[in-house]
C-alpha cells in the first residue's frame, strides 16, 4: 500500500538538520547516514551523503533527478562486479 499523500514524504528529522548545517558550511564533506529509508528532498540537492549498506558508506551525490527516491536505492547491499570494457566515469 502506498504512503498517504497528506503525510508528506518520510525523512528522519536529524537528516534535515545535518543537511542544513552542511549547506551553510559549504565544506567538502560527506554526511554519513544509516537512514536508507529517508526520502531525498530538494533541500539535499548538491550535498554528498555516505549511505551505509551494511558494510560501508557508499558516496551518494544528490542531484535533482534523485528527489523523491530513497537513499537506500543508491547504495546497493549486494556486490556487483561487472566488466569495465569501454565504460567511462564522469568526474562530478
Amino acid at each position: 500500500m502506498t504512503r498517504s499523500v497528506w503525510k508528506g514524504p518520510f525523512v528522519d528529522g536529524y537528516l534535515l538538520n545535518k543537511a542544513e548545517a552542511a549547506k551553510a558550511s559549504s565544506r567538502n564533506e560527506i554526511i554519513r547516514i544509516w537512514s536508507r529509508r529517508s526520502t531525498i528532498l530538494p533541500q539535499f540537492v548538491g550535498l554528498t551523503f555516505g549511505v551505509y549498506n551494511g558494510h560501508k558508506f557508499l558516496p551518494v551525490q544528490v542531484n535533482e533527478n534523485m528527489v523523491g527516491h530513497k537513499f537506500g536505492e543508491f547504495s546497493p547491499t549486494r556486490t556487483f562486479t561487472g566488466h569495465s570494457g569501454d565504460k567511462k566515469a564522469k568526474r562530478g
Partner: protein
Amino acid sequence: MGVIGRPHGVRGLLHVHSYATDPTDLARYELSDERGRRFALRWRSEGVAELAEIVAGKPVKIADRTAAEALVNVRLSVPRTALPATEDDEFYLADLVGMQACAPDGAVIGEVQAVHDYGAGASLEIGRVLLPFTRACVPEIDLAAGRMTVVAPAEVDAR
C-alpha cells in the same frame, strides 16, 4: 571487451557477450585474444556474431561449428589506443583502476581498486576507503604518470 560464448548453428556463428557500453560497438574494433590472435566481428542478430580470424592481414571466416567450438570462452580485448578520446572530465575505468592516489603533500595513499557507479555519481575505492569522484575530492589526474591527487573530505555522522 567481451567473451565468446557457445556456437550458434552449424555455420560458424557464435554467441558473443559484449562488455562495451553499447554492445554493438564491438564490431568497430579489431579484437585480439590472450594468444595474440586477431579477429574481426560482424553482428548477425542480437548477441550472435560472425567471426573472422585475421591471418596475414586477411580475414579468414570461422565457417563451421567445429572451428566455432574451439573459440568458446575466448576473451576478446581491444588495445587502449583504439578507444575513442573522452570528453572533459570523463575517464575510462580502465585508466582509473590501478592509478596511484596521493595526498596533496605527495604522500601515497593507495591504489584505485575499483570505480563504482550506482546511479548517484561515480566513486573510487582506494584501499578500504570510498571517495566521491568529484573535482573537490580528486582535483588532479595525471593519466600519463598514472597518478591522481586526492583530498579526503571531512566526514560527519548523522544519527
